[in-house]
C-alpha cells in the first residue's frame, strides 16, 4: 500500500499526481466523473482539485461590503462543489490521503496562467481541464482557459476533457 502523502513535495517528480482545474459547472463535474472512471481504485495516484476564484475588482460593486459578500458566496458555492467532487472520487476507492482540494482566491488576469502557477508549485505531472466547447466569437472576446494551458504547458502532460 502506498504511504506517500501530499506533504512530501520531494517525491512529486516520480509520483502520479494530477492537478484538476474545476469550477462548479456541469462540465467540471463531467471531468471529475471521467477521472473517477479512469483512476478509481489506483492506490498510487494523487489528485489535487483546484479552483481559482479571480478576486473581483472593486469596480464591479457599489460598496466593499457587496464585494466581500460576493466573494463569500462564491467560496461557499465552490466548497459545496469540491465536497461533491471528493465524494465522487471516494466512491471509486480513492482514499482521503489521495485527494486534496484547493480554493485559491487571488487577483489574476488569466485563470489559465494561475492554474499553471499552481502546477509549478505542486509539480504535478498531469494538468486536467474541462472544455466547454465555446463558440469562435466567444473565444475571441473572452479567450479560452484550456487553450491557454495547452499553449503554455511545458514538461508535463495536459488532459482536456470534453
Amino acid at each position, binding site marked *: 500500500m502506498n504511504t506517500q502523502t501530499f506533504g512530501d513535495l520531494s517525491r512529486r517528480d516520480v509520483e502520479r499526481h494530477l492537478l484538476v482545474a474545476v469550477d462548479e459547472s456541469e462540465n467540471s463535474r463531467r471531468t471529475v466523473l471521467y477521472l473517477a472512471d479512469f483512476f478509481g481504485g489506483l492506490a498510487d495516484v494523487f489528485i489535487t482539485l483546484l479552483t481559482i476564484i479571480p478576486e473581483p475588482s*472593486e469596480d464591479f460593486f457599489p460598496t466593499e461590503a457587496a464585494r466581500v459578500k460576493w466573494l463569500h458566496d462564491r467560496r461557499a458555492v465552490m466548497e459545496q462543489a469540491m465536497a461533491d467532487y471528493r465524494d465522487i472520487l471516494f466512491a471509486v476507492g480513492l482514499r482521503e490521503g489521495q485527494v486534496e482540494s484547493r480554493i485559491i482566491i487571488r487577483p489574476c488576469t488569466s*485563470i489559465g496562467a494561475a492554474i499553471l502557477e499552481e502546477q509549478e508549485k505542486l509539480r504535478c505531472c498531469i494538468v486536467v481541464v474541462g472544455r466547454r466547447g465555446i463558440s*469562435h*466569437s466567444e473565444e*475571441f*472576446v473572452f479567450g479560452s482557459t484550456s*487553450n491557454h494551458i495547452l499553449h503554455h504547458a511545458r514538461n508535463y502532460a495536459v488532459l482536456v476533457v470534453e
Partner: protein
Amino acid sequence: MVSPRTPPTTPPAAATIRDAIARHAGADKVPTRFKIIADTSDFFRVDYNDVVVLGERTFWIKGYEKEGRFGLDDEPKYWVRRAVDLTSGATTILKLVFHERFETRIGEVVITCFRSPKKEARILDLVAAHPNFMHGSWTQDAAGNIVRILEYISGLRYDEIITTYGADHEEYFHRFFPGVLTDYIELVQAIKFLHDHGEKHGDIRRDHILRDSERQVNRWIDFDYTYQHGESMFGFDLQGLGNILIFLVGRGDVLVPDLYRDQRQVFDTLWGEDLNISYKNRVANLKKVFPYIPDSLNRVLLHFSRGAELYYETTDQMLDDLATAQAALALHTGRGA
C-alpha cells in the same frame, strides 16, 4: 482603491452664487429660482440652472449629454451634465454617480458590463498627463458619491471627420489613410498604456474618440465602463480596437446588404469567413472590396474576421503587425507616417 478627497464644506449662500453667475454669464442670465445641491445621489433632482456644490467648488448646471450607444442615439444621460465652473468660468462636464449593471451582446456573445465611477476616477488620475485621453479630476459630494469633473473637449468625433476625407475610397486610402493609420496607432498605444497599468478602457467604440480641435490630438473619452472578463482580460477592448480599424480602413462600415445591392460581383466573392466576427453584416476582409489594400494591413483586419484562427491577446501583438502594415503602406502609397 481610489484615494480619499477633501470632504465638502458648508454650501455658499444663494446670494454669493448669484453674484458668481452674474460675473460669468451676465446679470440677465441669473436664474430667479434654482436649487443648491450638495448631495447628488438622486441625479434626476439636478435640473437646468441648479447649482451643484462640491467642496469649495460650485457648478452651474446646464444641459445633459446624450447617449450614442446601441442605437440609442440622443438618449439623454441625466447623470452627465454640462456645467459652468463658477470659480473659473470654464465649461465642464459633471459625471454623477450612476451604478449600472447590464448585459450586452456582441454577436452571440453576452458580456456583463458595469458602470463604475471608481474606475473612471482612478483612470483620470492615471492619464492626467497623457495627451490621448480626456482629462479631469474627481471629488466626493456631501453623500460620498464620486463625482467626476471633466474638462470640456472642443471638437468632433474622429469617425465623423475621417468619413469626409477624399472624394471616394481610393482617393481616401492613398491620400489620407497613411495619416489616419498613424493616428490610430497612437490611439492603440494609449490603450496599451492603460493595459500596462492593469486597466481596461471598457467601452472602446469609434464614437468614444474625439478630435480635440485646440490641441490637434485624438482623445479617448468615457472609461467608466468595465466588463467581466474571462481568460482574456483585454479581449473586449481588443475587439473594440479591431472594429475601429475596420471602420477606418473601409472609410465607414462596409455592409453586406450594400454590396448585394450595389456591387453584386464583389458580394459573390464573399464567404462567411470574410465577415466581422462581431457583426455579421460587416465585411472584415476589406481587400476583397478594395483590392489595393496591402496584404500586411489586411492581415491585421483578418484577425477580427470570422475566419480568424489566431486572435490578438495584447496590444503589443497588434502594434507589431500595425508597424509592419504601416511600413508596407508607405511603400505602396509613397506617403510615410
